[in-house]
């Protein structure tokens, strides 16, 4: 009565496939499909926020533009580049794991974690600056720009969306740390490495979300500066 019907993530030991699957390929394809479906739910979750953002930007075009002018574009652009770099190292890590090159995979995972932490560090510096400038809704928000309701709405969505993104980053760093430990313990092999690939998908998705957040929160008002 062995109860071996354990889940794909995380695997107990390096082995070809779990026994409710017929083949390793079936297991791999099902796991990949499952992860992509999960990413679709993430699209819809962020999608609700993007939709609400669009509705309110339509109603308060000026406020959203002028509020975005107060974003720190240098930090934003640098952070975008940083996160893209982390996606790059993550993609290389997944590739290395696939090829069974576990030592490079380990270092690339560590690099990804590190770059992710730098991203979050910069993000929290920005948060602190907004808080200090009384731009955090619910924490003594003040503005003397026209249409204060619209300005506050911008910041609500800014904090909600980048905050939800940051939560995803933190979860992602936790997953990567778990992968790192599992690699160290020799759980992965050329045959079994889907956790690395699947986490790579998650990390890439989080990066994609940020690319859009950068476009809608940092860029809209810049040209008004001239």
């Amino acid at each position: 009565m062995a109860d071996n019907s354990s889940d794909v993530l995380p695997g107990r030991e390096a082995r070809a496939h779990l026994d409710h699957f017929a083949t390793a390929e079936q297991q791999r394809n099902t796991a990949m499909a499952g992860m992509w479906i999960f990413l679709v739910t993430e699209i819809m979750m962020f999608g609700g926020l993007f939709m609400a953002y669009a509705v309110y930007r339509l109603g308060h075009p000026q406020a959203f533009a002028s509020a975005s002018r107060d974003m720190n574009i240098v930090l934003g652009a640098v952070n975008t580049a940083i996160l893209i770099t982390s996606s790059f190292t993550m993609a290389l890590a997944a590739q290395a794991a696939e090829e069974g090159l576990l030592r490079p995979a380990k270092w690339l995972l560590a690099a990804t974690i590190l770059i992710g932490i730098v991203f979050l560090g910069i993000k929290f510096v920005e948060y602190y600056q907004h808080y200090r400038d009384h731009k955090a809704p619910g924490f003594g928000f003040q503005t003397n720009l026209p249409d204060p309701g619209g300005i506050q709405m911008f910041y609500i969505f800014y904090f909600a969306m980048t905050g939800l993104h940051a939560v995803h980053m933190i979860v992602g760093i936790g997953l990567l740390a778990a992968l790192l430990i599992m690699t160290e313990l020799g759980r992965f092999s050329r045959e079994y490495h889907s956790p690395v690939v699947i986490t790579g998908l998650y990390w890439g998705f989080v990066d994609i979300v940020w690319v859009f957040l950068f476009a809608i929160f940092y860029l809209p008002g810049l040209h008004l500066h001239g």
Partner: protein
Amino acid sequence: MAEPTVARKIYLRAYAGLLSLTLLTTLLAFVNMGWFNTVAALMIAVTQALLIGGIFMHALYETALVRVILAGGVLWFLILITLTMTDYLTRSR
């Protein structure tokens, strides 16, 4: 394994492309192009998303099922936003 291996060169090119697009979108945002600013920013963001999704996340090399799932997700997001906008764009105030 079934996983197709992507040449490191392709990863590097995608990475370089992504960084240059970030620079481009930041610089373009300083130029006043009216409504086109928003369109340009979103178009560049979509291109970046395609690069990350297609190459880093291997969507380009995946099974048809994965591509259908992904297309479905995008389609339903568009349904959400389009039908909601039918209200906001035609509401008489």
